[in-house]
């Protein structure tokens, strides 16, 4: 088929053993205001047989798109991205939908949504999802009732540009000031990437495209939490993430009722999630309900590992509660 590659006898036997098709295990919906995060590491998916099976799950358009990516690794990334999304969402449908049968549409702002089949007997789950990936990690976040945005970045990613020039050009003034306060280039780079992923997550959560929410029109700040007395580095309390809309921003579109969390994922990435606050949280200053998050590492249709509470998910900012 289209994935060729050197395959030793041993890996062939190994992959054959793995490839007895396993029906996808059902997954109960995330509970209220809980996020499920699923990720796959492309380096852990090597079997051409398995990759070709995944190819079968995609729509013709998705397949075409994946194959038009420039080079094997990018093609594999695109394939795994759609595979992860399809296999993950299908699990929440109580076997009513298969990965291959899911259909997606782009809403009028360009954000992908599931188009559930019309079936009088079945009410589809109210799933929100967002996908993000790098060359080494593909992630999909799912909620049952709240809009969500997700962004991941390799934590060692270098910028070609001068960070302050870049920030002055694209970020909000308070963010430029914040980045300027760091003199060590490495610290500044790290803080820049944290801001970037959080801003991306917000724009993706809003779902209106980047021209709908220019980065300059809103600012992310890190604020000490309500229990800021704790200076114990092992404490679970981390600086909270505050969002403010600049005067230049369209207050109708850019709303401030969003909650963020930033964490280290798989020891290699920063991940930011942004979810809409519920209407009941009226006073943002008195502290928020912890952002509930559960994380699994998977090889779609093959294996899964619950990694919340391990060193694969480390809170950086915001508050995470993995017990749900």
């Amino acid at each position: 088929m289209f994935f060729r590659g050197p395959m030793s006898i041993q890996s062939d036997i190994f992959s054959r053993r793995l490839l007895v098709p396993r029906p996808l295990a059902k997954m109960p919906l995330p509970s209220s205001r809980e996020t499920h995060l699923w990720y796959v590491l492309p380096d852990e998916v090597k079997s051409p047989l398995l990759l070709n099976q995944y190819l079968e799950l995609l729509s013709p358009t998705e397949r075409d798109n994946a194959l038009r990516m420039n080079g094997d690794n990018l093609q594999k990334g695109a394939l795994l991205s759609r595979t992860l999304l399809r296999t993950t969402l299908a699990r929440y449908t109580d076997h009513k939908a298969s990965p291959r049968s899911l259909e997606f549409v782009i809403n009028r702002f360009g954000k992908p949504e599931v188009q559930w089949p019309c079936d009088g007997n079945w009410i589809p789950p109210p799933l929100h999802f967002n996908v993000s990936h790098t060359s080494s990690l593909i992630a999909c976040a799912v909620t049952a009732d709240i809009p969500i945005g997700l962004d991941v970045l390799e934590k060692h990613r270098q910028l070609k540009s001068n960070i302050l020039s870049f920030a002055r050009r694209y970020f909000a003034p308070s963010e430029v000031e914040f980045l300027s306060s760091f003199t060590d280039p490495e610290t500044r780079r790290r803080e820049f990437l944290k801001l970037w992923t959080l801003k991306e997550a917000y724009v993706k959560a809003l779902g209106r495209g980047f021209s709908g929410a220019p980065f300059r029109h809103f600012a992310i700040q890190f604020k000490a939490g309500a229990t800021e007395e704790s200076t114990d580095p092992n404490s679970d309390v981390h600086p909270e993430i505050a969002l403010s809309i600049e005067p230049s921003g369209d207050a109708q579109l850019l709303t401030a009722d969003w909650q963020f969390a930033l964490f280290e994922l798989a020891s290699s990435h920063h991940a930011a999630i942004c979810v809409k606050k519920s209407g009941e949280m009226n006073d943002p200053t008195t502290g928020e309900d912890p952002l509930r998050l559960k994380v699994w590492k998977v090889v779609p249709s093959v294996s899964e590992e619950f990694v919340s509470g391990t060193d694969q998910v480390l809170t950086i900012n915001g508050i995470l509660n993995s017990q749900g």
Partner: protein
Amino acid sequence: MASLAATSVFLPGRTRSVSLHGQGMAGASQIRLASFTHQRRSTFFPGQASAPRFESPAKPETVEKVCAIVKKQLALASEVVVTGESEFTKLGADSLDTVEIVMGLEEEFGINVEEDNAQRITTVQEAADMIEKLVSKGSA
């Protein structure tokens, strides 16, 4: 900077089909590039409105410069062929790369790109067209 070995056949205003000839580039056959037609694939990426259509296509030198900036930003191997038809996302650019590319173009050509327009550029050719339009505006 890498030089382009591919020939891009560009028909202004009509379908843009490009066949790529990896002349004289060792290892170029490793890269499979399907022929591109001007069809916007916005399945996965929010916010991609239809491309701005500019009056005349950019000069080949401009396209080459853009290709060079893109290759540098994305750290593409020298044998990777980038042409006017190359889509940034297909080359593996994420949103941070795209913004860095635009900033690199602003610095290279001494122009200012509105964020709206920056988000609409998806191919090298579109970037080059926009650059020339902005440059000619600036010097008018």
